[in-house]
């Protein structure tokens, strides 16, 4: 039986898709059979970040409508044995996904996979609520910025009240905070909320802190999840987060301002 994990945020553009791709790939790297499902109907993007955009034939909505079966719609990753993607549909019909349809697909996926990662769309509309409804755990992606933190808190409220677990009076969804686009330098200058600030306000377990990093754009340019760039700060930070998700204790890295070497200080360096 798979663990279903939703990656959600409320606010748009904070790094949900980047995170879904990285965490899903990280789980597969560690030997867990994983599928990443794009719930952003009409704005499919996970396929680009995963680098499989030219291999999408059937999508999530096709499976829900029984125009294709799961085997036809699942896209196997070219790099990793255990990794699959289910693409979102590009239809403009917002009601293309139904709760029953999603339940049917997730139940079938859960039989075959160890992890199902649901990449939620932004907002609190139907797509976002369907992405979270069947979840066992939630990764709440937050940027250190007022509107993102407020929206995350809003999502925490929805996670605890509008889910299958809440409806069935089961143990609540396990919530994790992932702080992304973190800039230690700006935090040290008092321009940006620090990890402790956000932790204190949201009061949920910290899964990780992903630094603002040029590696993320490079990775998305080439369709390679950033976690596979194991030399990069963001890649390593995601890797630690995956280990923590699997229950390992890992110290948090990349929280402090990098000390510049004397050469760099003397000649300056490009950021």
């Amino acid at each position: 039986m798979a663990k279903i994990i939703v990656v959600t945020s409320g606010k748009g553009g904070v790094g949900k898709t980047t995170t879904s791709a990285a965490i899903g790939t990280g789980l597969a790297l560690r030997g867990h059979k994983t599928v990443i499902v794009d719930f952003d109907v009409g704005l499919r993007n996970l396929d680009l970040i995963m680098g499989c955009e030219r291999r999408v034939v059937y999508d999530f909505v096709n499976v829900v409508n029984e125009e294709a079966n799961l085997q036809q719609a699942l896209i196997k990753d070219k790099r990793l044995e255990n990794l699959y993607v289910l693409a979102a549909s590009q239809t403009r019909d917002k009601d293309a996904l139904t709760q029953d349809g999603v339940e049917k697909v997730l139940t079938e996926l859960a039989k075959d996979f160890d992890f199902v990662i649901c990449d939620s769309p932004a907002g609190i509309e139907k797509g976002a609520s369907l992405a979270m409804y069947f979840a066992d755990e939630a990764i709440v992606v937050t940027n250190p910025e007022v509107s993102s933190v407020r929206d995350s808190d809003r999502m925490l409220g929805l996670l605890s009240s509008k889910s299958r677990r809440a409806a069935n009076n089961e143990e609540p969804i396990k919530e994790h905070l992932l702080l992304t686009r973190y800039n230690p330098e700006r935090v040290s200058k008092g321009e940006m909320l620090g990890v402790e600030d956000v932790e204190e306000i949201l009061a949920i377990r910290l899964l990780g802190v992903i630094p603002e990093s040029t590696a993320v754009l490079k990775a998305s340019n080439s369709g390679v999840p950033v976690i596979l760039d194991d030399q990069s700060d963001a890649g390593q930070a995601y890797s630690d987060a995956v280990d923590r998700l699997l229950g390992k204790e890992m110290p948090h890295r990349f929280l402090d301002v990098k000390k510049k070497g004397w050469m760099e200080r003397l000649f300056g360096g490009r950021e």
Partner: protein
Amino acid sequence: MNIFDFFRDRKKGNTASVAKERLQIIVAHERGQRNTPDYLPALQKELVEVIRKYVAIDNDDVHVALENQGSCSILELNITLPDR
């Protein structure tokens, strides 16, 4: 950053701590509202209609609030009647 910027920044204060303070207030407020049942606005509207049969009041003159105290909840009604 030069020395003058440094002092200017100090005077302007630390915007991150302003952000934190504002967030703490708004989040606490919104959490308080989150736990109120969905029927409260409708209840409020109907109460206003009933009371209007007898007294001329505005929508804003009726306040309903639900407070949870341990195992029981208290529904608090606060109706401001117009000046006589």
